[in-house]
């Protein structure tokens, strides 16, 4: 193993409660790596991330004057920053710390064989030691940030996010694809649970947005280009398909909302006269006062069929597996509004699970008290909707009465449709937005980073991330605003220094690296009269694609230099013995 002589490394191996030690013999890992000449201390801990253990490690780093540490624990996704911060508190350069993942890569992956998992852990830890032994202190790159944000989408989430950002002192550029701001709910009547009208909510937000000096709202606008990096993105906006505006913003919030599910023709009788979707029914309710009519006909009976376009576990092609969250409450709320409008209307609810969660339960309660009748169907025995003599007939096997087949003659069938992700390929392409299995934009982690994406500085909010109610959309949009503010209010961001670097003596400028870089970080410059490549460290993500294509082997990535990677490979190839 090639190492710098005289290194003093510390190795810490974590039990993770039992998450690791149940399947990896951590004491054996410790015993084996203890023999490495550069290692001066090896410890095992129940929870290395615990505050107390961190304190112990700090004390040991200082006392033994360690110049590098290796922690074998979980994924660096979880604790890289935790331990880097710990290293810094101990006075050790955080980039002379290596996290080795023996949980996800050993204990969790090899539960069937403790010996094999332990051997693999030993090899990985040795590789970590090899890398750390050749590590050099590195400094973070500080980037000044622009105290402005771009909000994409002027629905309720986007509008509220813009106001929140403005409140916190961040200027906002807002773009809306449609000709008018307002989004989906601007057309809706009373919203649950508080009964405020969607249109009024939107109007009040738009009014406030227009009053703010630090919010610019562009309608009929699309983002066509994004460059730069977190803290300082350059974006180009096409407005009215004519004008192109260039903006500089520190962060971007995507709040592009959802599409209501449109049933296929014939799905639960869709396209039959009187079979409408929940949003259409909401509009009907919003427009009704006094009499309650559909196409001039009095409505005496309404049948709601739930989970249309949601929870499609029996469907073969392109099913929506997820629950759309808002629709149960939306439907019972619509029923309550119907009852308020005309108490004589008979209402039947054909549901699967009544998901009026939390305080929304009270709306369900109210619908029950008003006389709504609830019948439960299973997905594999869906209700059949037919039309006979101008009247609709719904046949359903009601699970609540022992599978009895019930026929309901009704004037209206409301298909309680869910939310589906909005198709927006150009936006996804420009922003490189990550998309989850359900087709909605994906956060990094639902709990650790719920509004963050894998692209630094790019946030998601509202129903673009997944189905949400009004207040949940607002909360998530304000959470995204808070995270933008946390990013920008300081005025600078420190970036990872693990970036590619060109050796100017070896480089002969062939352009191979420029072609391979997906981030546009390579520039051609003239240095001492010689053309060479230069890598913009702010744009570089350290992904290393340029390294193998360089014929002169002139490029290395800081923290992962060729010699480090070679040493790691040697360590991995070594027999465990």
């Amino acid at each position: 193993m090639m190492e710098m002589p005289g290194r003093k490394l510390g190795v810490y191996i974590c039990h993770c409660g039992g998450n690791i030690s149940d399947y990896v013999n951590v004491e054996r890992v410790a015993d084996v790596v203890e023999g490495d000449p550069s290692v001066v201390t090896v410890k095992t801990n129940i929870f290395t991330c615990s505050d107390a253990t961190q304190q112990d490690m700090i004390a040991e780093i200082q006392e033994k004057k360690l110049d590098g540490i290796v922690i074998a624990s979980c994924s660096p996704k979880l604790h890289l920053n935790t331990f880097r911060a710990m290293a810094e508190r101990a006075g050790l350069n955080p980039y002379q710390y290596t996290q080795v993942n023996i949980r996800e890569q050993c204990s969790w992956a090899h539960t069937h064989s403790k010996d094999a998992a332990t051997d693999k852990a030993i090899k990985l830890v040795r590789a970590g030691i090899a890398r750390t032994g050749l590590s050099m202190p590195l400094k973070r790159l500080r980037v000044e940030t622009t105290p402005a944000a771009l909000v994409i989408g002027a629905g309720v989430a986007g509008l509220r996010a813009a106001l929140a950002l403005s409140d916190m002192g961040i200027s906002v550029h807002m773009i809306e694809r449609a000709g008018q701001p307002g989004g989906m709910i601007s057309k809706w009547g009373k919203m649950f649970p508080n009964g405020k009208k969607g249109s009024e909510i939107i109007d009040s937000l738009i009014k406030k947005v227009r009053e703010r000096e630090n919010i610019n709202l562009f309608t009929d606008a699309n983002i066509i280009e994004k460059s730069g990096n977190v803290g300082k993105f350059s974006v180009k906006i096409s407005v009215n398909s004519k004008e192109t505006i260039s903006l500089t913003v520190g962060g971007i919030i995507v709040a592009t909302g959802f599409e209501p599910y449109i049933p296929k023709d014939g799905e639960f009788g869709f396209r039959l006269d009187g079979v409408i979707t929940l949003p259409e029914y909401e509009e009907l309710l919003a427009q009704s006062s006094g009499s309650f009519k559909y196409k001039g006909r009095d409505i005496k009976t309404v049948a709601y069929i739930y989970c249309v376009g949601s929870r499609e576990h029996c469907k073969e092609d392109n099913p929506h597996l997820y629950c759309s969250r808002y629709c149960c409450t939306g439907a019972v709320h619509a029923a309550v509004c119907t009852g308020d409008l005309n108490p004589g209307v008979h209402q039947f609810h054909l549901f699967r699970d009544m998901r009026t969660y939390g305080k929304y339960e009270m709306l369900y309660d109210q619908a029950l008290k008003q006389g709504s009748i609830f019948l439960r169907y299973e997905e594999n025995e869906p209700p059949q909707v037919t039309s006979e003599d101008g009247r609709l007939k719904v046949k359903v096997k009601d699970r609540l009465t022992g599978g009895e087949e019930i026929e309901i003659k009704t004037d209206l069938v409301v298909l309680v449709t869910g939310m589906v992700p909005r198709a927006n390929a150009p936006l996804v392409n420009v922003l490189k937005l990550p998309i989850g299995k359900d087709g909605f934009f994906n956060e990094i982690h639902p709990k650790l980073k719920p509004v963050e994406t894998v692209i630094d500085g790019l946030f998601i909010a509202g129903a673009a991330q997944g189905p949400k109610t009004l207040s949940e959309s607002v909360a998530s949009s304000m959470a995204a605003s808070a995270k933008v503010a946390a990013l920008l209010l300081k005025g600078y961001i420190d970036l990872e220094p693990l970036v590619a670097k060109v050796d100017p003596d070896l480089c002969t400028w062939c352009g191979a690296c420029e072609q391979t870089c997906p981030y546009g970080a390579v520039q051609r410059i003239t240095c001492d009269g010689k053309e060479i490549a230069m890598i913009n460290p702010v744009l570089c993500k350290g992904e290393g694609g340029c390294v193998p294509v360089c014929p002169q082997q002139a490029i290395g990535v800081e923290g992962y230099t060729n010699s480090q990677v070679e040493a790691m490979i040697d360590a991995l190839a070594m027999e465990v013995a």
Partner: protein
Amino acid sequence: MGRNSNVDYDALIVGAGIAGMESALTLGDMGFRVLLVEKESSIGGKMILLSKVFPTLDCSSCISTPKMAATANHPNIKVLTFSEIDAVSKNLDGTFLVNLRKNPKFIDPVKCTGCAQCETACTVAIADEFNSDLIARRAAYIAFPQAVPKKAVIDRKGTSPCSFTCPAGVKPHGYIALVRAGKYDEAFRLHLEDAPLPGCLSRACYAPCEDECTRGQLEGPLPIRAIKRFMVDRYYIEHPEPEYGIPEKLNVKRVAVVGSGPAGLSAAYFLARSGYSVTVFESESEPGGIMRWGIPSYRLPKDILARDIKNITALGVKIVTGTRVSSTQKMKEDGFDAVFMAVGNTGGRRISIPGEDLEGIVDCMDFLKSCNSDDRPDVNGKKVVVIGGGNVAIDCGRSALRLGANEVQLVCLESNDEMPAHKWEIQQAVDEGVAINCSWGPKAVSDVGGKATGAEFVCCTSVFDTSGKFNPSFDESKRKSFDADIVIMAVGLLPNTSPFSSEVELNRNGTINADKETLQTAEPWIFAGGDALTGPSMIVKAISQGKRAAYYIDHYLQGMPMNSCHFDERLPMVDREAVLSRTPGDISDRKPVSLKLKPINEWARSFGEYESTMTENEALYSANRCLDCGGCSQCRQCVAACPADAISFDMRTELEDLTVGSVMLSTGFDIFNAANKPALGCGRFPNVINAMQMDRILAPTRPYNAVIRPSDGKAPSNIAFVLCTGSRDQKVNNRICSRVCCMYSLKQAQLLMGALPLADITIYYIDIRAFGKGYDEFYEQAKGMGVYFVKGKVARIEETTDQNLGVFYEDIEGNGGTRRAEHDLVVLSVGVLPTQGALCLFKDGSLKADPFSYIDEVDEDLEPGKTSIDGVFVAGTAAGARDIPDSILHSDAAAAQVAAYLKKTGKAS
């Protein structure tokens, strides 16, 4: 942002669960200075206690610990654990005044290294709230392995009633806990820290502690004195001599103690331990005062007293016997820097009745003294009348019988119920043959040739007047007389203070006038205490006087102002009702051990002891009945164990007022107490547990390291979940849905299928509410794994003979009607309830609650987190039940509100 001197912090965040930590981190990153106050000793809230979290099934610790560490280490966040907010009020300028309470940890967090030695040493087990009471933790404890900060605290809920009651500051709870732990020597040594005469107290103390014992409200109090006797006897057999010698002389000052009764000896003991040279002067031939000469040896064997006194003399205390001190001034001239006068009572009170000076009239103290000497009085075959109804009268009567008296008539003013003697002593006297004559006042002693031959009494109609003063009235028409050869006057005791009347101020009753707190007389170097100050009392009170005197004499001699500190450092007494309410209802019925007495024919005529010492088993059984009322027993084992010298019982609550720019309430939720659904059997059947307990059983820091059922430790093979326990339920006044129970039950079901692959798992539900991102997929995953779902409300649960559970449910989707299914473990998926604390913070009631008693969000649609008070925000479950992702989003939204408010008001630093 320039520093605004008006606020101490930009934001106060109350509650450091996931919501509080998230808001704090976001605000801290924005540059605001945050004070995060948490009532527990660690941040992390309930989330850190969970096993894994839905729907990703990542380890809850793994998600919580980075947030906890980041919070604790954030430069803009100050974390205060074990602290509470008493009140918050809004100032006119839009800032908030916060009354902060820092609860004492009793362990210095700066010195504590989290090594947990104190936990290992601690003798008190308390239900571990961080393990949902499944197992016990110690009174000295670190909340859980991943605690941040990882520092121990001591759970002192107050002083235990026994320890609070002891006048001498002896800590029965402490030595009982040590006896329970088999640490008998340590138990004795603890007693010796607080009082030097454990042997005498183990025999002759009237044990006021036993009257206060909380267990007295159940099957009967602990026999505290008898436990002490076990501990003392065992120790004295093993240690005929004290284990210590003369302490290092810390100073050259000398103190004289006048009187070697319990007060004098105790003062000498504590002064000697503080390094003073102490000389005790005793007029009698042997030391001990009332213990040597007053109390009969059948109650207090003199060898026990002698051994007790060695505890004092081993410290180098000189006891000069046979020397009557008649002048304190002389002592000063002899070089004593201070004098403690503890001369006690040496004589009986006299009453002015005809014939009082006749031959045959004996003073009670003289009588008892000669009983305790080699020259015992001759009462053989004689008739004895004892006048008086107190303990001394009883002692006289019983001693006279032992000396062969033909008849003992005890005559007293008081009625049977009013007699000052203890009931059990009266009963024993009666059993021995003492005749008790109540409500008779002495009128005259019959005189035949200068010798008393009897006494005449008139009927006493009442002893006290309406104001409760001693003011007897008589019915002269009713008379009674007794023949007597000897009449013992035992109507009260008098201090022997007259020789000092020119040197110290005396009260009318002859007691010395001194400051009740410091025991200092008008002459600063003279202190007085014991019965000479208080009047007749009991040993343990006299000990407390001696101890108090030593404390203040030390103060005086060090030249410190007498008001610079306070002798009594006890925490307030713990609320007995609180103790009883936390004592499980199914606590096993354990009757007190009855004290073993020798057969009465053996002891009634003997001066030997008639009570015997408990066996070790009896002592352990008895000590194990202790309810640990105060939490920590003050056994001080942690003090000895702590390598960092971090433990300090002197810590007290600190109050601090702060000004903050805004307030965020993230006080979380309570879990529904399933005992409020009695039909479901929680608390009655051991194998019905709640879901938080199941989460603990499944957690990486789990209590048992396996999934077992509580009754017998067997791995369950047929587990049921009862959803909506305490939610969607009008009967428990919680109509709403708790949002999380379906999902955590699905999670637990999946984890159980991993832990117990062969187990059957049934979920009884009303609706499965898997509504979040990835949740319905998670539900399908559980179905795919074979979890059995039954749509039906569980009505009641019954236990079978093998402690399985019969679950009765409404079979909605089958044939209808009620069905019964048997399971061997039932998990009640308990709901979420609002906490009450936060709403009370604003004393003017300006913080409004919603109809479900959560903190109200005034505009839930558009202004998440905004409460009825501008500048006060709510985050997470304090505003309503939420799962973790929703709580986090809500907290960040609330953080945005705080930031906007601070910008608007300009109150940020």
